[in-house]
C-alpha cells in the first residue's frame, strides 16, 4: 500500500475502466505504467473500495405509503394467535397429510377457527397476515372469512403485493372504503362514477341496512344500465326482500332482457302477497283439483295447453329443456311460483300433510310434489316443508321417493336448526349413514346432541358390521369438524382395537380404532381452540 500515489478525482471510474480493459492496454491516470501497474491498480482499488464502503450514507427516503387504517378490534389472545400460526403452518403440499393416521388435519379446522374468531370480533395479528393471505389465495372457499378476519390491513398489503390482488377484488369497493349510507353525496358520486364491482358492493351494503334506500338508488339509473348489470343489481334485492319492493319488481317484469324478467318474476313469487303470486295462484289452481268420483279422493292434474303471453310476462319460460314435455314444464313453473297458502282452500280445506298424502292420478305425483318442494324453499314455508319431508323413519325417505335427497336437504334448510338436527338424527337411526351425507351438510355446527349421538351410534354399527372406515370417510371428516367437542368423552370406548370378528374385513378393527382416535384428537383440539378464543 505504501507504493501508491494519490489517484486523481473520479478515480474509481478510472480504476474500473482500466481494470475492465486491462493495464496492458490502459494505465489508470496517476499510476506508473509497466509490470507493476496491475498491483498498483489493485492497491488503489483496495483503498477506494474500503473508502467507498466506509463512506456509505443513507439514501433519501422514498414516498412513504399511506399508513394502514387502524384496526380497532381487540387483539387475539396470545394462545389463539399461536394456534392460528400453527394452523397456517400446516399448508397443503408441505408433505404428509392424507386421511390415514390419528393426527388431525389442521387446515380443515381453519374455516371453523376463522368463523369463531370473526364471531368474537378479534383483530388479526399483523405478522400473520402474509401467511393468511397466501392460504386464502390458494383456497377460494376460505377467502370471505379470511379477508373479514384480516381486516383493512390486508387490503392495504394487497395494494403493495400483486400476489394478493384477489383481496382487492373480493373486498367491497376494491379496498377503498365505502361511503357511509348517510353520506348522500359520496353515495351518489360512487354510484354514478364507480366501477361495476364498487357499485355492486355499494348497493349490497346499503341494501343490508336500509332496503328501501338501496331500491331508490337503483331506480335513479335503472333505465340507463346495461342488461347484464341490471341483472346483477336486481339480484341484490334478494336481501331484505319485502312487500314494498313489489312495484319496482312489477315494472322490471316488462324489462327488455329475458333474464331480468325471469329474476324479477322469481323474486315476486317469493312474496306470497304479490299480484304476480296471485296471478300464478289462479293459473296453478286451474290445473289442480280433487276428484271425488274415485274410491278415495284423488288429485287430478290438467297441465296448461299453452304458454300465453301473460304467463311469459310473469316469468314462465316457454321453451322446455330437451327431454321434457312442454305442458309438464309449464305446469311445474306455475305451481312453483304460486303461493302455497292457496292449496288448502283449493283442495277441500285439507292441511299440507293431508294434501301431500293424497294420491295423484296419472303419474303427476312426482312433478307436483317437486314443484311444491321448490315453492316451499322459495317461500321459506316451514309448514309445507315439514309436510313434504314426511317422517324420517318412513321407508321411502331413505330411497328414491317423490322427494329426492337433494330436495330434502333444501327443505330441511327452511326448518329451525333443532328440528333439522332431530329429523336427520331420526333419519340416520333408521337408514344408516350411507345416504345421510347430503343431509348432514345442512345441519348447524356443532351438531345438536341427538344428531351427534345418532352419527356416532351409526359409525359404531358400521364398525361392528365389519366394513372399513374409509367407506365412511366423508361422514368421519364431517364429524371431525361438526361433532360437539363435549361428545369426545363418549367416544373413549371406541378408541381401543376390538377383537377381530369372523366376518370382519382383515385389520378393519385397527383402522377403526385409528379413525376414532383421530376423531377424538380433533374434537379435543377444537375444544382447546374454542377455549383459546374465549368461547366457554
Amino acid at each position, binding site marked *: 500500500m505504501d507504493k501508491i500515489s494519490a489517484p486523481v478525482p473520479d478515480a474509481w471510474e478510472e480504476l474500473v475502466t482500466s481494470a475492465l480493459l486491462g493495464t496492458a492496454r490502459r494505465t489508470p491516470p496517476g499510476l506508473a505504467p509497466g509490470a507493476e501497474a496491475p498491483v498498483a491498480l489493485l492497491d488503489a482499488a*483496495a483503498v477506494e473500495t474500503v473508502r467507498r464502503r466506509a463512506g456509505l450514507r443513507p439514501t433519501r427516503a*422514498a414516498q412513504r405509503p399511506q399508513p394502514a387504517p387502524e384496526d380497532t378490534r381487540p387483539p387475539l389472545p396470545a394462545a389463539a394467535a399461536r394456534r392460528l400460526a400453527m394452523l397456517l403452518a400446516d399448508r397443503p403440499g408441505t408433505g404428509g397429510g392424507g386421511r390415514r393416521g390419528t393426527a388431525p388435519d389442521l387446515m380443515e379446522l381453519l374455516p371453523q377457527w376463522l368463523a369463531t374468531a370473526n364471531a368474537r370480533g378479534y383483530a388479526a395479528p399483523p405478522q400473520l397476515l402474509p401467511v393468511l393471505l397466501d392460504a386464502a389465495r390458494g383456497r377460494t372457499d376460505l377467502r370471505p372469512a379470511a379477508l373479514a378476519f384480516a381486516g383493512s390491513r390486508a387490503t392495504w398489503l394487497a395494494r403493495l403485493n400483486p400476489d394478493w390482488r384477489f383481496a382487492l377484488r373480493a373486498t367491497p369497493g376494491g379496498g377503498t372504503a365505502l361511503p357511509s349510507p348517510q353520506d348522500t353525496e359520496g353515495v351518489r358520486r360512487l354510484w354514478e362514477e364507480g366501477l361495476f364491482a364498487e357499485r355492486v358492493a355499494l348497493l349490497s351494503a346499503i341494501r343490508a341496512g336500509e332496503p328501501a334506500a338501496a331500491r331508490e338508488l337503483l331506480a335513479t339509473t335503472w333505465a340507463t344500465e346495461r342488461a347484464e348489470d341490471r341483472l346483477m343489481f336486481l339480484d341484490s334485492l334478494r336481501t331484505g326482500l319485502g312487500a314494498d319492493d313489489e312495484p319496482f319488481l312489477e315494472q322490471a317484469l316488462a324489462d327488455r332482457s329475458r333474464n331480468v324478467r325471469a329474476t324479477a318474476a322469481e323474486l315476486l313469487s317469493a312474496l306470497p302477497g304479490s299480484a304476480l303470486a296471485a296471478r300464478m295462484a289462479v293459473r296453478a289452481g286451474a290445473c289442480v283439483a280433487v276428484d271425488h268420483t274415485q274410491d278415495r279422493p284423488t288429485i287430478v292434474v290438467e297441465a296448461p295447453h299453452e304458454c300465453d303471453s301473460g304467463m311469459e310476462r310473469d316469468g314462465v319460460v316457454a321453451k322446455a329443456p330437451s327431454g321434457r314435455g312442454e305442458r309438464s314444464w309449464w305446469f311445474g313453473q306455475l305451481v312453483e311460483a304460486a303461493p302455497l297458502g292457496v292449496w288448502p282452500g283449493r283442495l277441500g280445506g285439507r292441511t299440507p300433510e293431508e294434501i301431500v298424502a293424497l294420491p295423484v292420478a296419472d303419474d303427476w305425483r312426482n312433478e307436483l310434489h317437486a314443484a311444491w318442494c321448490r315453492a316451499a324453499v322459495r317461500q321459506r314455508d316451514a309448514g309445507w316443508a315439514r309436510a313434504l319431508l314426511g317422517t324420517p323413519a318412513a321407508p321411502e325417505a331413505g330411497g328414491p321417493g317423490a322427494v329426492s335427497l337433494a330436495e330434502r336437504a333444501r327443505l330441511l334448510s327452511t326448518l329451525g336448526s333443532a328440528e333439522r338436527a332431530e329429523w336427520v338424527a331420526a333419519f340416520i337411526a333408521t337408514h344408516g349413514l350411507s345416504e345421510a351425507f347430503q343431509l348432514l351438510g345442512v345441519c348447524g355446527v356443532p351438531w345438536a346432541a341427538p344428531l351427534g349421538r345418532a352419527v356416532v351410534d351409526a359409525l359404531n354399527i358400521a364398525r361392528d358390521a365389519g366394513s372399513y372406515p374409509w367407506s365412511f370417510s366423508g361422514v368421519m371428516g364431517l364429524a371431525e369438524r361438526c361433532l360437539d367437542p363435549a361428545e369426545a368423552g363418549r367416544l373413549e370406548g371406541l378408541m381401543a382395537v376390538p377383537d377381530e370378528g369372523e366376518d370382519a374385513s382383515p385389520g378393519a378393527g385397527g383402522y377403526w380404532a385409528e379413525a376414532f382416535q383421530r376423531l377424538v384428537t380433533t374434537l379435543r383440539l377444537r375444544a*382447546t381452540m374454542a377455549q383459546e378464543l374465549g368461547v366457554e
Partner: protein
Amino acid sequence: MTQQGVRWTADQVLALAPDSASRKAGSKLGAAGPWSEAGSSDEGTVWGLCKGSGSKPYQTVIDIADAAGPAYKCSCPSRKFPCKHALGLLLLWAGGEGAVPPGPTPDWAEQWIEGRRQRAQEKRTAGAAGSAAGSGDPEAARRRAERRAVRITAGATELEQRLADLLRGGLAGAEQAGYGMWEETAARMVDAQAPGLAARVRELGVIPSSGPGWPVRLLEECALIHLLDQGWLRRERLPDGLASTVRSRIGLPASADGPAIRDRWLVLAQYDTADARLTTRRIWLHGTDSGRTALLLSYGAAGRAPELALPVGLELEAEVSAYPGTGQLRAALGEQFAPPTPTATRPPGVTTEQAAARYGEALRDDPWLDSVPVTLDRVIPVPDGDFWQLADAEGDSALPLSASARSRPGLWRLVALSGGAPVKVFGECGHRGFTPLTAWPEGAGEAVPLC
C-alpha cells in the same frame, strides 16, 4: 424462577425443528390427543407418553434448562433431531399448563436427566483439567503452525500473481473465462490450507453472471483479496488486533480466548444458511447490561440442524467470550447460569444515519467486513420502485434493503407488522444494504423473526 412461569411461544418451539416436514409433523402432535401422562417439573423437564402406531407409546423427555438450548430424548426410531414427538410435546407445553401440568418426574425421565447432568458435570471438570495440562507437545504444535504458515504464504503469493495477470489482461476477459478458472484457483488455496482465501476466490466465480454492475463488484472483491494477501504477507508489521483479524479471515483456526463476559443475553436473531456439505447457524446476542453484540456460530452436517438453538425473544444469563481480532463479534457461549426464558426486553436502537456510520467505523478494524449488526429505531418499510427501503420515521434518510432480504417471505412479515407505521428492526447493515432479521411492533408485542 420456575419453568412453569414463563413458557416459550409456539414460534420459538418451531424454530427448533430441523426441517419443514418435522415442523408440520410436530404441529400435528401439539394437541392433547395422542399424549398421556404428560407433565413438567420446576427444574425445566417436560415429559410425556405419545401414542404411535405400535402398542407401546413412545417416551419423550426434554430438558429445557440445558445450557445449550433444549436437550431431547425420545424412544421413537426417528433419526431427526429433535423428533416430531419432542416438538409436539414442547408445543403442548407452550400451549399452557392444562395439558402439561406440573408434577413429580417419572423414573424413566428422571434417570435420563440425572445421567445427562452428571455427564455434563464430568465433562466440565475434565475440560478444566485438560486445558490446564495443555494439549500435547507445544514444540510440535509450533512446527506444525510454521509449516502451515509457509504453505499459506506460497498460496497467497500465487494468488497475487493470478490477480495481477487478471488485471493486466482485463476483467472483460473474465466473463468469457467462466467459472472453471476460479474453481481451479480455489482448489489451489485449499491445498495451501487457506480456506478463507479459497471461499473468497470461489465467490469471484459467480460475480460475472450476477447482473448489471458486475465489473465494479468483481474489482472490489479482487482488491479486497489482494488486501488480504498483502495483510498476510506483512502480518508481522500489523498491529496485533488487525493481524488476528487477517489470520481469521485467511481461515486459521483460533479459540475464543477473550475474557468471559457475564451478562443477560437477549437472543436477537437465529438463522441458518446451508450449502451441500454444511449448515451454518448464526445466532446474534445482545448483552442487556454490557450493551455488547455477539455472534454465535454453530454447524451441522448437511441436512441436519446445528445443535445450538436459541429462538428469538429468549434471554439467557451466561458467559460469552470473544474470538481474537479487533472489533471481533464472533464469540463462544460459555457457562450458563439460568435457562433461556422469554423476555419482553428489546435492544436499544439507532437511526439509519448512525447505522451507516457504524458500518463505516467497523471497517477500520476489519476492512473485509460485509455488514455489522444494528438495531434501527422507528423505521418504516417503504417501497421504492422494485426495491424496498427502511426509512426513518422522523427525517428523510433511508437504508435500502439488500437483494437477499427482498426475496424472503420475511419482507412481507415486516411490511405487514409495520402497516406503514414505525417499527424497531434488528438486522445486518453493510455495503449490500440492510438485511432485516427481527422486528418489534411499536406498541406491546413479541419479537417477530423475519429470517
